[in-house]
């Protein structure tokens, strides 16, 4: 009985505490809202990019602020849940956010982005690489700070064809996420444009398959080993797949999307070689642009660790391009900022040029550095930009 009384009291207190009001807004501040994951598995992607964004905000504030005002970041945890994502979006909007920054994945960031769109504010996906993260999936005020997955697939196949004389490709798709499908869609679009290139075969697996023995058997039973395998996959299943491919004695080049960037997993596949990944900037300290290496050092000073993968960088680019658009538009009003962003053509940023148009608020072409891993050591060997932009209609129709 006392337990129930205590429960009732507890319940009433809980209900009352849940109604607390939100803080007030200062006049000389521009509020940037981060409706990102601070818990749940998306935190592993959101937090690094968020830290990079905060570094850029700090740089701008130290240089005098944006339009003379300090940028104030506010945060709301989406807990890697769609319903919570919408609430997180509303929570930052209620704190006066002029820009809502949302999770790295379309499915998890869309709910907060839709709230921002409905409120007439600009939303930016931290590093979403699906075409939906922008106009088609949210609305006219939504953008993404990263480069489309399809560009990664197209870049690797064109580079391997041109620089490494690869002529036969094998397409191995992990059908788990739209990101993976996006990489292979880009590959499918590029392949007919490569003269004399052939598709030796195609197969699919699921990210949580413990064994891809049957897929490997089919590769090994081809009359000739393919020159390259286009592996459209991401963590965590990518590691097991790569390990099994090499353990079976398949020596083909393995071409990937950016999702496998990073050396943190390479202990699981010792002495990995002939393995290529496209990145927007190098986390290994050998980026051709010395400013990137300086940024890596600053990131380490601020967060205590090196950037784990290239997915840190789009966070920095996000604040960079948005702040430039705000300066040019002389306002934080969505219509003005969006108009300035849509004028950007090959706008230089620390991690490659960015172009936005009124048809696409994402990158359907991008400069990628090619990272080659030999004997388990990754290093930048080349740079590539695909020769044509991938058409928006093709991407949306997939």
């Amino acid at each position, binding site marked *: 009985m006392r*337990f*129930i009384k205590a*429960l009732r009291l507890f*319940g009433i*207190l*809980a*209900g009352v*505490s*849940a*109604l*607390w*009001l*939100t803080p007030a807004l200062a006049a000389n501040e521009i509020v940037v809202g981060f409706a990102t994951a*601070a*818990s*749940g598995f998306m*935190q592993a992607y959101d937090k690094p990019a968020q830290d990079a964004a905060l570094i850029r905000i700090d740089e701008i504030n130290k240089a005098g602020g944006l339009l003379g005002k300090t940028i104030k970041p506010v945060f*709301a*945890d989406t*807990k890697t849940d*769609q*319903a919570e994502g*919408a*609430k*997180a979006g*509303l*929570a930052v*909007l*209620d704190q006066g956010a002029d820009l809502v920054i949302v999770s790295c994945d*379309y*499915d998890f960031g*869309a*709910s907060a982005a*839709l709230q921002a769109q*409905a409120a007439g504010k600009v939303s930016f996906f931290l590093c979403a690489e*699906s075409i*939906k993260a922008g106009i*088609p*999936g*949210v609305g006219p005020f939504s953008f993404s700070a990263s480069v489309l997955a399809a560009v990664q697939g197209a870049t690797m196949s064109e580079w391997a064809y041109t620089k490494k004389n690869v002529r036969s490709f094998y397409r191995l798709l992990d059908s*788990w*996420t*739209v990101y993976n499908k996006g990489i292979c869609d880009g590959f499918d679009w590029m392949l007919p444009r490569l003269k004399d290139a052939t598709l030796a075969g195609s197969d699919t697996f699921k990210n949580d398959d413990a064994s891809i023995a049957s897929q490997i058997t089919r590769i090994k039973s081809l009359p000739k080993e393919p020159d390259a395998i286009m592996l459209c996959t991401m963590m965590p299943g990518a590691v097991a797949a790569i390990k099994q491919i090499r353990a079976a004695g398949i020596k083909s080049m393995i071409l990937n999307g950016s999702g496998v960037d990073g050396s943190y997993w390479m202990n699981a596949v010792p002495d990995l070689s002939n393995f290529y990944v496209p990145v927007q900037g190098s986390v290994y300290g050998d980026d051709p642009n010395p400013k990137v290496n300086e940024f890596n050092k600053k990131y380490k000073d601020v967060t205590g660790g090196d950037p784990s993968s290239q997915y840190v960088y789009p966070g920095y680019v996000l604040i960079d391009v948005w702040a430039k658009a705000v300066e040019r538009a002389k306002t934080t009003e969505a219509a003005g900022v969006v108009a300035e962003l849509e004028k950007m053509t090959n706008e230089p940023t620390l991690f490659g040029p960015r172009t936005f148009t009124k048809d696409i608020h994402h990158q359907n072409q991008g400069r990628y550095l090619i990272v080659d891993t030999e004997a388990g050591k990754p290093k930048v060997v080349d740079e590539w930009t695909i020769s044509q932009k991938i058409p928006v209609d093709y991407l*949306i*129709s997939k």
Partner: protein
Amino acid sequence: MSRSPSVIRQTIVTPIILIVVLLAMAALSYQFGSRAFNRTAIEMFINIMVVVGLYAFVGNSGLLSFGHISFMCLGAYMTAWLAIPPVMKSMTLKGLPAWLLHTQLPMWVATPISGAFAALFALIVGRIIMRLSGIAASITTFGLLGVVNNVYSNWDSVTGGQGSIVGIPPTMNVWIGWLGAAAAIVTAYLYSVSRSGLALRAARDEAVAASASGVDIVRERLVAFVVSAFIIGLAGALYAHFLSIVNPGSFYLRTTFIALSMLVVGGMYSLSGAVSGVVAMSVLIELFRNLERGISLGGFTVGLPNGAQEIAIGIITIVILIYLPSGLTRNREFSWRGWPLQRRLAQPVQTALKETN
């Protein structure tokens, strides 16, 4: 023979109390709550619909069902097909028939249709599943959840596959949420006091005696299955309007276990239990989320580490069930002492069969 008052007159105080209390919550939330808090309130009302629908089946038949969230999925996607503007549908859902691609219905029309669609599906599937008893039925409903989830995750041209589909008009607010919860409570209540509901409860408590008295157990279970599917289908439709995006992953294991735990914590065999379980858990979850966000004392923000909310809810659920194994309401219904001729909705009889539930 003297005319005794009808069952409805004797027991109607329970749903009235529940609906009035929820109305008070809705009003408080609308008046004093921030926009984010109002969304929590709407989520709570939708959860009430789901758990009340689950109670309509689980509480009356005694069979634990893991598959009811599949009806939420069916309802949500049917609303998506009906309510998304044709321009957006034609781009991403090319496999839909042409008449469906060109239709756009308002929420008031699409929601009952979605509920009816889920009920129809339950009618077809239930004819087979309801012949099973005990744990076999529960595992089969689990299989149903798996099948629906797999079909919806992979039929890309019709459901958008594992990616989310957007574009459902965001027309939900606290009052519509309350209306949905009230509709669910009224439906479950009317079913419980009906002849079919009574027969099913008889079969739950003593299957052999009920069958010997002429109760067609399979038919009664099927009725409960269809009624609960309708309620949960409605909940799915409102959820789609609430979130504006649907994704098969939101209607799978996590939602199933949250709904079941809310029902068990509240009291599996009572309507008041279903509602109390949801309200109690929702309040606790919100409290812990606020604690995670932190309370500012002076210049500092003191808060629980992220992720503490899920752990705390788990511990609290265990503690509640240790001290109150039949749930918060102990399987009784709310009633008002001043109500004349009061009689509660019947609670389960203690029988030897109870251990198998």
